[in-house]
């Protein structure tokens, strides 16, 4: 048994401890907003927060996370009202949308640690892949969200 606190709710999971967090979220808990993209922590489509840190959930095992607090895109805000989500809407970021859960979770954790990022901070820290090429709009949205979070 592994215990995970996901979006504030504790879950006891009877699964192999080697199970990647990604598949526990998607297939055990039905939280399909967290996406499978590569399985080797390359693309970031599976990014969630583990104890507040952006984490590529395809490459961490639930056995190492007993008792951890996990936040997924479904738990980031109750009404898509997180500043990053609002900024994504204002900058018309998503195209196909598949990578955007991971992009939003990565950006939210990044801004929590780097409230006033430069372009090179963004280049160094936002490394998730988007095949639709929404990067320029993601960059603009991160700057916008930073402004909103300053109030």
């Amino acid at each position, binding site marked *: 048994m592994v215990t995970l606190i996901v979006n504030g709710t504790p879950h006891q999971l009877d*699964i*192999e401890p080697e*199970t*990647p967090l990604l*598949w526990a979220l*998607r*297939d*055990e808990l*039905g939280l*399909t*907003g*967290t*996406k*499978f*993209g*590569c*399985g*080797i922590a*390359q*693309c970031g*489509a599976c990014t969630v927060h583990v104890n507040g840190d952006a984490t590529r959930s395809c490459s961490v095992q639930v056995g190492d996370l007993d008792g951890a607090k996990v936040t*997924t*895109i*479904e738990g*980031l*805000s*109750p*009404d*898509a009202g997180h500043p990053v*989500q609002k900024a*994504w*809407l204002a900058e*018309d*970021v*998503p*195209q*196909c*949308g*598949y*990578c*955007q*859960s991971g992009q*939003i979770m990565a950006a939210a954790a990044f801004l929590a640690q780097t409230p006033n990022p430069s372009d090179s901070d*963004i*280049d*160094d820290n*936002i*490394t*998730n*892949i*988007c*095949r*639709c*090429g*929404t*990067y*320029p*709009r*993601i*960059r603009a949205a991160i700057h916008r969200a930073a402004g909103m979070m300053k109030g």
Partner: protein
Amino acid sequence: MTVIRKHLTRRRFLVVSASAAGGLAVGFAMPAAAETSAVSAQPWDEIPGGQEVNAWLVIEPDDSVVIRVAKSEMGEGIFTALPMIVAEELGCDWSKVKAEYASANRNLRESNIYQRMGTGGSSSVRRSREYLQQAGASARVRLIQAAAAKWNVPPESCSVKDGQVIHAASNRTLGFGALAADAAKITLAAEPAIKTPDQFTLIGKPLARLDTAPKLDGSAKFGIDTRLPDMLYAAVVTCPVFGGTVKSYDDGAIKAKRGIVSVVPIPGGLAVVADRFWRAKEAALALKVDWAEGPAAKTDSAQFAAEYRAALDGDLAVAVKNGDVAAGLGSGKKVELLYEVPHLAHAPMEPLNCTAHVQADRIDVWMGTQDPDGALKRAAKAAGIAPENVYIHNCFLGGGFGRRAINDELEQAVLVSKAVGKPVKLVWTREEDIRHDRYRPQAAIRFEASLADDGSINGLHAKTAVGSIQRSLGVSTVPSGVEPSAVEGLANLPYKVSALEVDCILKNTHVPVMFWRSVGSSQNAFAMESFIDELAHAAGQDPYRYRRKLLEGKADFIAVLDTLAEKGDWSKPMPKGSGRGIAIHESFGTIVGEIVEASVDAKGVLKIGRVVAAVDCGHVVNPLTVAMQIESGVVYGLSAALFGAITIKDGAVEQGNFDQYQVARMADTPPIETHLVLSGGAKWGGIGEPGTPPIAPALCNAIFAATGKRIRSLPIMNTDLSGTT
């Protein structure tokens, strides 16, 4: 799992009613925000409660309008652009427009009432604009007639605005919602005329996309997110060498593992079925398979490259012959150059997947497909069930780029579901996705040209050796030896030349090839626009002015080029070690020019400072989504230009994931500006693909301007740029 059935609509009813027999129901828990959005998180579901006025639109009691979209939303914004076209004619309130997928099953049963539902060739707007305008106009006139009958006034005295029919003379209004039932019963004696572009009031506005909200909170359902009661999961292993088969396999090591259900044969491989995907995937990796790889196991990319180069000296089919090329090449300054490109994978973010539920007399499929009509027939054939009993529930597509036009994963899922008698979600790993794509073909392209003293071109002879997509897909043997997509961007050369010949040799290997964003233009624009740049250099002329001179008399090309040069600061000097490159190319009816600013440091590190694009697609439905598609096309092409290469060794693809098949990330992506230079008139160009072709040559030309080094073989990462500046 939460099953929400608060809206029991026709298509949901079909699914839910099957639960009595087969125990099948479907639904997802959805956040409140997505429930109220203009596009459902489950776009295949009919939005409930309305009156269908025609197959394209449903009007709800509160005057909301649900517009059916018969093309696939894979990021290009078609769930916004096509509803805008219908709404333009209908006269509804845009803030009350919703969109949902049209049904491929209905399209089959009702004689293509939705026309061709396939999405490709950057054709959705330009090929469906007129019939969508007609659908909106027809509904508007019927709503007016319904109101006029109620008021007993002539229809000509009524007008529409924001979802209301108005009789100005008596100051009366009726909402569309109150009129829809009557309007649905009216048959028009003749279809009304549709608006001309000068009459558009909605088309041309940069309206926000309708599908953004469900893509911000994780609620948008892609095929891979499908969850059904009693659903099993499948992972596949297929022969690393294309065309190979399973000789034998040993499942002894996996049989007893937790959750493993069975191993099912599929074409060219095996599917491992389990109660969870991760268990299926781990077991598939542990499965011991002895492959019959066949003779292709001895091939590799270097051999293909040598064969393509040699083929250029053999017998080629003539695609274009204007004037006496041999004579033209006989005089002036001769330039002869070879360009080469590798295979490319599509690598959409969502790995291919399909959920199928095969029952005795019907098939339900949840997936993202660019071709619902074709998917329906493919599923029917695989299961031996009449296509009328197949229901394709198209989801949001996590990227398409051409890959989701042919659904290999669908056939696999149907076979596995049929074998195990349960709904099955079959998912490809990224490695399967990269190694079993249908690729942009490898190609070799050679030009010979001769220049007069003033730089004009006496003769140009282009030859290409490339794989045939039609032969690879088995749709045609291409008896003429000339495939239009193989020579697109060469055969329609816009530049003035005294004599032109374009030849082609179609040469397939065992590697399957297919449409990749911009198809033949993806390699031919790189070759052609690099070569023109080299001719400008050979003639001692500025690359922009040289192109301009050769495009004399082509007002649309000149307008794009001039805007590009101005917005891209072509004439402004750049520091040492940096430079600008330019390229212009017409594809899918749209001309796109791009300028790239690039710099290379002493260590050979390339940095792209900026991309400026100028675009003539004739008319524009939504300038916001057009700009987004140009940005997208540029970044997609940038990935390929910088890093893209699928290579074959021992008959198999060497790359497997994003660590080996690299793509552009944030740090690689420059600011991108899009400028529209619309020529209007009869031109309606596509927009999903034309942004891609110019970026590779514009970048390579910028690298030349910065370093003096020409790159004639992609990807750029294979060229060492150190010491060039």
